[in-house]
């Protein structure tokens, strides 16, 4: 059986290692062939970008060689897919090679799309790429005071990031001794400060306590860079001296070009994780169109389900598990406290008050991630 994984991010890597371990004997005997196609020979720890933007991590801490993370027996190729020929059960890569498959898993991820909002790319600082996060940190270091606004597009990767960055900025400016010269203003697309009601119930009074102002039902329509004004779809405006944005995201260009899903999100069954209408194609991580968080933990839990099911197909001829919508997100509440939210399709999160212990666990996880990607955690 030929298993092909397209994408070497968190979801693809955990899935590959999960299968590499489950199917060791089949891989050795040649009964199963497991191939991963990726666009890069490096693997980035994307949550580290938040810390990079406020000077708490350095770029070298974000990367490992992708090959070093993979189990033996996985055929890893740096050769991005350009064409998905689903009717023929094959893909064509940039190098011109064709890879056939019996089971395909698509884990190509997502990308920030600041160009969706006029003026956003050229007038805001962002932290969703290494380059932009470093640029943001340099800009913060030069900033001496004024109004800092946090604004975002929808959908965005890591729904906790807006809260985390505002609380981390509070501590960043406090540590520099200029918090009293900085007005922090947080905007949010819906009618409370976070989409998770229980998180919003905790975060709003926390913002009040820290002197962070906020405006809800604020969807960014355009940025007037000359006047330093943000206009919202709802008709309001707010001015800024420094704009920190969380851009809307979209799926990868190759998904859009191959017409697998609008804006690069592939229609996916919420429990089986099959691409709708394709029994031999799985989708995981940011690439799905599922109404759940675009976050590493989502990709992780989906990968475990898909791994178990593909192994069961190899051995039993059928899948054995369904995905229940499980997501787990840490929430940094500043530089030294954190909490978390865990939920699934049936059960809302019940976040606890932030503690130092959870923050230290999150910092530990920043290192443990590499064990997680290897499928050990």
């Amino acid at each position: 059986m030929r298993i092909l994984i397209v994408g070497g991010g968190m979801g693809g890597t955990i899935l590959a290692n999960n299968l590499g371990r489950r199917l060791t004997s089949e891989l050795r005997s040649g009964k199963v062939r497991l191939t991963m196609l990726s666009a890069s020979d490096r693997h980035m720890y994307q949550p580290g970008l938040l810390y990079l933007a406020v000077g708490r991590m350095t770029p070298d801490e974000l990367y490992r060689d992708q090959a070093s993370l993979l189990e033996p027996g996985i055929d890893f190729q740096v050769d991005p897919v350009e064409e998905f020929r689903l009717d023929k059960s094959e893909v064509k890569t940039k190098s011109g090679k064709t890879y056939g498959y019996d089971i395909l898993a698509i884990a190509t991820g997502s990308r920030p799309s600041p160009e969706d909002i006029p003026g956003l790319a050229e007038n805001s600082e962002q932290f969703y790429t290494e380059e932009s996060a470093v640029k943001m940190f340099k800009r913060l270091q030069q900033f001496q005071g004024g109004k800092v606004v946090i604004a975002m597009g929808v959908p965005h990767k890591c729904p906790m990031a807006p809260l985390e960055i505002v609380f981390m900025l509070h501590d960043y400016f406090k540590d520099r001794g200029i918090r009293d010269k900085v007005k922090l203003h947080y905007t949010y697309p819906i009618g409370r400060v976070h989409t998770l009601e229980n998180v919003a119930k905790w975060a709003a009074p926390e913002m009040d306590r820290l002197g962070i102002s906020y405006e809800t039902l604020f969807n960014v329509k355009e940025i007037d860079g000359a006047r330093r004004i943000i206009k919202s779809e709802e008709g309001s405006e707010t001015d800024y001296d420094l704009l920190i944005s969380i851009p809307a995201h979209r799926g990868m260009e190759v998904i859009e070009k191959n017409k697998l899903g609008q804006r690069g999100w592939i229609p996916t069954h919420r429990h089986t994780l099959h691409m709708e209408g394709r029994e031999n194609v799985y989708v995981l991580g940011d690439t799905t169109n599922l109404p759940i968080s675009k976050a590493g933990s989502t990709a992780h839990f989906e990968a475990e389900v898909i791994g178990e099911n593909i192994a069961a197909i190899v051995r039993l001829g059928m899948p054995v598990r369904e995905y229940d919508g499980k997501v787990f997100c840490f929430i940094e509440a500043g530089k030294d406290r954190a909490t978390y939210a865990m939920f699934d399709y049936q059960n809302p999160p019940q976040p606890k008050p932030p503690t130092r212990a959870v923050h230290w666990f999150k910092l530990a996880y920043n290192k443990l991630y590499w064990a997680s990607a290897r499928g050990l955690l």
Partner: protein
Amino acid sequence: MANRRLIDARGSFCPGPLMELIAAVKMAEIGEEIEVLSSDKGSANDIPEWIRKVKHEHIGTEEKEGVWHILVKKTH
């Protein structure tokens, strides 16, 4: 019947039904109808509230067996 887009946001706590709708409205054509399915009764209030504020059209809301079907139309 106009083109209708279905957003199945049942069980979506994060990003949640309204966030899903906001993203869908951006992708939709003017005149397109969007039906949101939500298992959160709060959606029956917060979705029409946002739709009014951004001046699209709230066509109606109906509850069927614990699922709220909220129909809106992109008008501009």
